């Protein structure tokens, strides 16, 4: 576990709590799907919590992120509340997007989340544009663009990296490299080196362990600081793993991913377990305190689910609202 730049107990515990909150959110989302209470499908980010939390904890609410189809973790980490998130997941009026977006467009916009995106790579331009406007308006804000390893196959990335590099934009491209693109190992569909691709545009790039929340947070803090000084853009290739299938319905997946591999990651590289152990080892928290965090988060999540299940759908009159800004 690397040393973190966030150095006080409060920061550590918040990072731990946020990771637990993501895990709890996803577990409940999965349950909603399995019990046929959720409309459609959803992509869970369990296993990838350290990336979302390590990065978002280095940002202010004024900093922007763009998220992906696997976006619940980013949304939680950027400061969203469970109730409005579960309402969104269930298509309820009190959802962050009034039920119009659902899982694939979920975002607490007020906290600088510019949205999850159902087009793989689709938000790369948006994040870069947010950085451009931050630079133009001299707001000092930074934009972080989350995307998966599979998304590096989208030409858009190369186009926007070129502009970001040319214009020194305050954007950090954060590749959540979980090794898979749907049902395919990404190394079967990615030639050469992803990191070298960013470097070829003159972008300073880092390969790092995405399961180590402190390492992620530490590097992000440094890069955010440098972005604010006009030294951006940057690229981070974060090695991580998704515990579930590509989406909730992807249950029998041994044809593309071995059970052994999954359990190896879960048992030895779990970001929450490992960070919990570190917190205990460093005497920052006791086992009981961590259990208490877990329990209270679980309780909060269950209450939010119960609330969302009862919440009302948007009125049908909303169907043609928000097509245009009035």
């Amino acid at each position, binding site marked *: 576990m690397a040393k973190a730049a966030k150095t006080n107990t409060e920061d550590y515990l918040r990072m731990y709590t946020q990771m637990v909150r993501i895990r709890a959110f996803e577990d409940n989302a999965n349950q909603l799907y399995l019990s046929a209470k959720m409309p*459609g499908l959803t992509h869970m980010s369990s296993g990838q919590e350290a990336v979302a939390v390590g990065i978002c904890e280095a940002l202010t609410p004024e900093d922007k992120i763009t998220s992906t189809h696997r976006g619940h973790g980013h949304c939680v980490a950027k400061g969203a509340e469970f109730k409005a998130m579960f309402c969104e997941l269930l298509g309820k009026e009190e959802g962050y997007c009034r039920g119009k977006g659902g899982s694939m*467009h979920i975002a607490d916009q007020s906290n600088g989340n510019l949205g999850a995106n159902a087009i793989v790579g689709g938000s790369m331009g948006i994040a870069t544009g947010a950085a451009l406007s931050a630079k133009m308006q001299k707001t000092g804000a930074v934009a972080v663009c989350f995307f998966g390893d599979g998304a590096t196959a989208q030409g858009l990335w190369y186009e926007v990296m070129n502009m970001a590099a040319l214009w020194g934009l305050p954007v950090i491209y954060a590749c959540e490299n979980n090794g898979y693109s749907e049902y395919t190992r990404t190394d079967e569909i990615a030639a050469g080196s992803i990191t070298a691709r960013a470097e070829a545009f003159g972008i300073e790039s880092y390969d790092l362990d995405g399961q180590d929340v402190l390492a992620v947070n530490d590097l992000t803090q440094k890069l955010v600081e440098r972005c604010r000084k006009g030294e951006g853009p940057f690229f981070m290739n974060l090695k991580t793993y998704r515990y579930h299938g590509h989406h909730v319905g992807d249950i029998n997946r041994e044809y593309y991913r071995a059970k052994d591999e999954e359990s190896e990651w879960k048992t030895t590289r779990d970001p929450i377990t490992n960070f919990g152990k570190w917190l205990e080892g460093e005497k920052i928290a006791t086992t009981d305190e961590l259990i208490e965090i877990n329990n209270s988060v679980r309780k909060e999540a269950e209450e939010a689910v119960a609330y969302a299940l009862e919440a009302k759908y948007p009125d049908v009159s909303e169907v043609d609202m928000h097509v245009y800004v009035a």
Partner: protein
Amino acid sequence: MREITLSKAVNEAIAEEMRRDPTVFLMGEDVAEAGTPFKVLAGLVEEFGTERVIDTPISEPGFVGLAVGAAMTGTRPIVDLMFGDFIFLVMDQLCNQAAKTHYMSGGKLSVPMVLRTNMGATRRSAAQHSQSLHALVAHIPGLKVAMPSSAYEAKGLMKTAIRDNNPVVIFEDKLMYQDKAPVPEEEYLIPFGVANVKREGTDITLIGTSSMVQVAEAAADILASEGISAEVIDPRTIVPLDEETLIKSVKKTSRAIVIDEGHQSYGVTGEIAARLNEKAFYHLDAPVVRMGAMDVPVPFSPALEDITVPTPEGVAAMARKLCSGEMIHAA
């Protein structure tokens, strides 16, 4: 006759054509081992190998571009575009390249490729995974556009598409993959540009595309129980469009509704309605009415999504109005 799912029908069509013609191959995301997320192509890689069933990176413009080049040089690619919404990503390769190559080369080059993709809302997939974008493609000369309305059409049209020497885009309704229909064991092809009169009637013509054919048929059932006789027609391909059959029907019934799951404005219903109005004008007892999807991005919430698309009840209600002369004062 045996009944098979639309999914199986597509699979059979492709397998048969790949057996018949070694230059036919498949490419797209997760088409091989996974057989696509909808499992439509399951089993093909086992029979034809990874040389002819090619998993691509998530590079839609790229692999459509590859297909165009491969089609120009002796092969017949079938490209799988996982969601119809991604067609926006490939419009340049499809519309600036594939569609125009034959013409721009004065007839010297051709692009015999198939782009199979899907359409259809109410799957709770929100605005970027629910669109029915066939009208965009139909607007571009050089492309043909097929819209199967059942397993039977899905097989027959796919086989025709694969043998066609032009770029063809097929939109399958993703909600119909598990729907079964009678499909002969024997080989058959469905020619492009030949509409199918699904049901004869005398009072009103209901023209539906893709799953809207089912909606039209269900509406016709409702209407029949009320003594209104509706003719239901499935154009099957919107480019080429079998204008003749549609006009003949409307001349007979004097009334028509055009039903399509694309957004209503600047879409398919406008084109068909305009042609009918123009060419059967003096036979019409009422304006041709259009029923497309609402002009809104597809909302996620079930409460909203369900009301964005035409329903049998809605169509029946409109037909009733038309037949009772209620529209006279409206227009």
